[in-house]
């Protein structure tokens, strides 16, 4: 028992510690660790309920690299991200800046902007499907002056990603607004005061103090939007359910939806695991890449002090 500690007290404490962490660690091992490992291994197998499991080497990966459907789903995600990330940053930063002043009814505004965060994506997507319904929906009626009344947003391959991006931004805006508000609160006041003495205009103070000091938050919002963007599933599943799931010609299919179709509709466990691995590698590598990039341009106060 000496490996636990030198004194009897240390050994007793070590045993207590191990006992305390046991349930969660064991659970994480069984319900997260094992499936993650098995998923990695399964991507090297052909496996479905009808033909059984058979080692396949890299053939799943070769197939995936030529898979037009998968490639299109990645392309769809990039198009979604091109709308979601800038929209998310500009809108939530804008609202946070407006809210970060002495105003009556701040709490009411904050409630209104945050409310979509707590609603389920499924219910939100159903409501937005109805909003984007051609002819009878809210969007069609409001955009009638632009001739968009009968636009079939959800069945036109070149438009279908717009409603999906709108729901995504609408639902996450409040979340990112809170992050930006926390960031704004932490900008040292002394910087603004020093700039005032130097005669800086409000715009200059925003451009040269607030914005650089917020760069860690902006970066965080971008990374979170990216990670979430590559996992978009609920919105697409629901919003294209009534027309054609995944959109006409797969114009709204995301990698997560493709994974679901391959794994749970076609029961191709091996190939679906390969898709999952690819998805994971993309998310992980871009996260690592962005973490390296941020050292170059994100301003951290602690670096300055060092």
């Amino acid at each position, binding site marked *: 028992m000496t490996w636990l500690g030198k004194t009897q007290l240390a050994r007793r404490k070590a045993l207590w510690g191990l006992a305390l962490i046991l349930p969660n660690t064991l659970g994480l091992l069984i319900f*997260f660790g094992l499936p993650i490992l098995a998923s990695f291994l399964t991507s090297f197998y052909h496996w479905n309920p009808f033909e059984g499991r058979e080692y396949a080497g890299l053939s799943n990966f070769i197939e995936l690299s030529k898979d037009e459907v998968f490639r299109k789903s990645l392309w769809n995600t990039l198009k979604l991200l091109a709308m979601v990330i800038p929209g998310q940053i500009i809108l939530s930063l*804008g609202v946070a800046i407006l809210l970060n002043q002495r*105003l009556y009814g701040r709490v009411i505004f904050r409630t209104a902007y945050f409310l979509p965060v*707590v609603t389920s994506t499924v219910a939100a997507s*159903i409501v937005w499907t109805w909003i984007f319904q051609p002819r009878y929906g809210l969007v069609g009626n409001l955009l009638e002056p632009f001739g968009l009344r009968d636009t079939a947003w959800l069945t036109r391959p070149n438009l279908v990603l717009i409603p999906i991006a709108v729901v995504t931004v609408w639902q996450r805006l409040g979340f990112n607004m809170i992050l930006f508000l*926390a960031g704004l609160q932490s900008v040292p*006041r002394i910087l603004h005061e020093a700039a005032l003495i130097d005669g800086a205009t409000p715009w200059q103070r925003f451009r040269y103090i607030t914005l650089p000091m917020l760069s860690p938050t902006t970066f965080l919002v971008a990374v979170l939007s990216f990670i979430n963007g590559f996992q978009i599933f609920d919105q697409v599943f629901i919003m294209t359910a009534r027309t054609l799931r995944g959109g006409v010609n797969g114009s709204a299919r995301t990698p997560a939806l493709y994974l679901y179709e391959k794994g749970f509709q076609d029961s191709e466990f091996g190939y679906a695991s390969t898709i999952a691995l690819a998805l994971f590698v993309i998310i992980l590598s871009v*996260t690592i890449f962005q973490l390296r990039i941020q050292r170059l341009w994100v301003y951290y106060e602690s670096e300055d002090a060092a």
Partner: protein
Amino acid sequence: MKDTPHWAILPWPAKIISYGLLAFGAVVMILPFLWMLSTACKPPQELNKLPRLKPWELHQMLIPENAVCRENYDRLYERVPLFNDYLRNSALMTLGRVLGQFITCTLAGYGFARFRFPGRNILFALCIALLMVPLQAFIIQEFLLIRDLGWRDTFYGLIVPGTFSAFALFMFRQAFLQIPVELEEAAELDGANPLQILWYVMLPLTTPTIAAFVVITVQATWNDFLWPLVVSNSPDTRVITVGLALLQGQRDTPWNLLMMGSLLATLPMVILFMILQRYFIEGVSMTGVQR
């Protein structure tokens, strides 16, 4: 905002513009809720009206001429007799996961925060590494595991994998690390064992973290869709999000009933948010910092 310095107070024209922009944005954010509410109370013949309204006549679209909330409610239950069961199943799943995570993660958080044992740092690093792996990366295998355990279409399948969490572990460990060690030492001298110390000393001092944990977990579980969709397809264990998705998938479901269903599924979280708003906001700051 009480201590806003004088130079940060905007001149009145800028202030009016701020109010205007914020109010416009708030209306846009709330509009889907109003549209949901109004459609949920519209009779079928009002759904397909073509009003050709100007934006300032919006209220005409939002206020039903003949509100039939009660009839739509009844018709929803005629169409989906088990709707209340779905709501109940969601509530059970939520309760199970929150309680389970609370127990496993406060224990583990305390263990990692205050006890020295061999392999502690490696085990903790492994747990935290799990945070980087999204469910979708291993959902096939997770499903197969649950299937092999015979837990498909059971509450075990819905709840048990959700009772372990690296995120909650991290949250509670951080909270416990903030508490001065002296308090525990005093309790130890009085002969309290670690479980008693956790319950009587540590947890009462971490109520804000507990509240944030509860609202985050309740919200995430109630709104969970992908996992229940995969693991539970029988009516007995169907949760509300899956029930709604099925209703939406039937092309002949009229929109007023769908909006009524969405309303009933959303209402519990909206009410919870109105009451515990502070903890939701604090929860976001905590998650943001953690990621």
